[in-house]
C-alpha cells in the first residue's frame, strides 16, 4: 500500500522509504520511539512522518490514515534551508551540506538537533520499492536562528545493486521539547 501512495504522490514533495525494522539503518527509528513514549503495545508497521511529528503503528485503515498524515505534513512550512551537493566517489557518496536555521530557536545539544543522511535504492527488497541501504547522522552544535552551518558527510551504502537507482535524503530535525517528546523535521532535500 505504501507503493500505491508513492504513485499517488509522485508529483508532490514527499518521499516514501522503507527500513528493516529488525536491523534499521542509522538512528532514524529512535525518532519513532521518541514520539511513541512508553507503555502500551506496538505493532508493525511503524510509520513516521517528519521525524515523528506524526506516527502510526499496527493495523489501521492504511491508505486513508497515511494519506491524512502526508497531507497534513505537506501543509506545514519548512523551518530550515538546506543546500546539498552530492558526489559519488567509488562506492561512496560524499555530501557537502549547508544548513540555515529558520526554526526560531537555537539548534544544538539542548534539543538534540541533528542532520541525517539517508541513502536508499529503488529496489524491491522488502515490501516496497524503496529500500534504505544506509543512514548516518551528525549532531548540530549551537546554530542560532538565521545562521548557517556547513557539514561534510561521507557514506558508503551497503548492498547497492544498481547505482543508477540510488537516491539520497538529507534532513535536519530536532526535539522541540528538549529532553523529551517527539522530534520534528525542519526540512529535507531529496535527490
Amino acid at each position: 500500500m505504501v507503493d500505491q501512495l508513492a504513485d499517488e504522490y509522485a508529483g508532490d514533495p514527499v518521499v516514501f522509504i522503507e527500513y528493516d525494522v529488525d536491523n534499521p539503518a542509522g538512528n532514524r527509528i529512535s525518532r519513532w520511539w521518541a514520539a511513541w513514549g512508553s507503555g502500551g503495545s506496538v505493532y508493525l508497521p511503524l510509520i513516521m512522518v517528519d521525524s515523528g511529528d506524526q506516527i502510526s503503528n499496527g493495523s489501521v485503515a492504511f491508505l486513508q490514515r497515511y494519506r491524512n498524515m502526508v497531507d497534513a505534513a505537506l501543509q506545514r512550512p519548512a523551518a530550515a534551508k538546506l543546500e546539498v551537493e552530492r558526489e559519488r566517489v567509488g562506492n561512496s557518496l560524499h555530501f557537502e551540506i549547508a544548513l540555515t536555521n529558520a526554526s526560531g530557536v537555537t539548534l544544538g545539544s539542548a534539543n538534540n538537533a541533528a542532520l541525517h543522511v539517508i541513502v536508499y535504492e529503488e529496489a524491491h527488497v522488502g515490501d516496497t520499492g524503496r529500500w534504505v541501504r544506509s543512514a548516518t547522522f551528525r549532531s548540530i552544535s549551537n546554530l542560532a536562528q538565521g545562521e548557517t552551518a556547513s557539514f561534510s558527510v561521507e557514506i558508503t551504502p551497503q548492498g547497492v545493486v544498481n547505482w543508477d537507482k540510488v537516491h539520497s535524503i538529507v534532513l535536519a530535525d530536532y526535539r522541540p521539547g528538549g529532553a523529551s517528546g517527539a522530534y520534528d523535521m525542519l526540512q529535507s532535500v531529496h535527490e
Partner: protein
Amino acid sequence: MTRALRAWWLVALVASVAGAQELYVPAAAHNSGAGGTVWRTDLEVKARGDAPASFTVELLEERTANSDPLSATFSVEAGESLRLADVVDAVFGFTGSGALRLTAVQGAILATSRTFNTNPDGTYGQYIPAYEAEKAAEHGNDYVLMQLSSSESYRTNVGFVNTTDASLALEVDLYTASAALLGSVPVTLRPYEMRQVPAVFTLVTSEAVEDGYALVRTSTEGGRFFAYASVVDNLSGDAIFIPAQLDGPIEAPLAPRFVVFEAFMRPG
C-alpha cells in the same frame, strides 16, 4: 487609579492572563512641547469580533523603569468601541509622556491612538498605531526610521520602548539621505522604559538635515523594543509618526517542506 488598587489587580491579572494579547502604543502624552505645542492623546479600543472584551491599560512613564506601572481596567461590549480621551491625564492623572501597554483580560481587542497638538484654532494630530508585542524589533536586525528632517522648519524626535524586563542598550546611527553617517547616539533603557530623544539630529550635527534617516539596533541579546520617529513642523506644530521598519535584504522564502514518510517493516 491608585497604585494600591492597581497592585492587587495586577496580581490577579498575572495569575490569569499569562500569554494574553498585549499591545503597545509607543507614545502618548499629556504635556507641553517645544515651540509652544500642547500634546494630548486619545486612545480608542474596540472589542474584536462578536465577543465582549475587557482589558488593562498601563502607563509606561517616560524615563522610568516600569516594572510596576500605573494601570486601569475597562470593558467593552461586543461590537462596541471605547474612546479614552486625553488618556494620560484622564485615566492616570499624569502629566508627561510615556507609552501605553494594553492587555486583553477577556476576549481580544483592537486599538488605535491619536496624539495631537492642540491650540485655539484646532488640532494637528498624528496617528500612532497599537502594535502586537510580538512585532517588537529584535536583537540581530537593523531597523530604519526614514523621512526625517532637522532644520528651521522641522525637528525630529525619536522614541523607544523597551518591551522586556531587562535593561536594553540601543545604538542610533544618524545618516543623511545620501548615506553619510553624521554620528551615533547611544540609548540605554531600563525594564519597560519609554524614552523620547528630542531633536535628535542636533546631538550629532549643527547643520540642517533636509532629508535623513536613522538606523536603530540593540546590542542586548534577547532585547526587544519599539522605535519611532515624530517629525514636527516647527511652524505649525503638525507632526507625523514614523514607525521603525526592518532594514536589510528581503529574505527569499523557504522552499516548501519536503516530506519524508518512513516505514519500519519486517520483510515478507
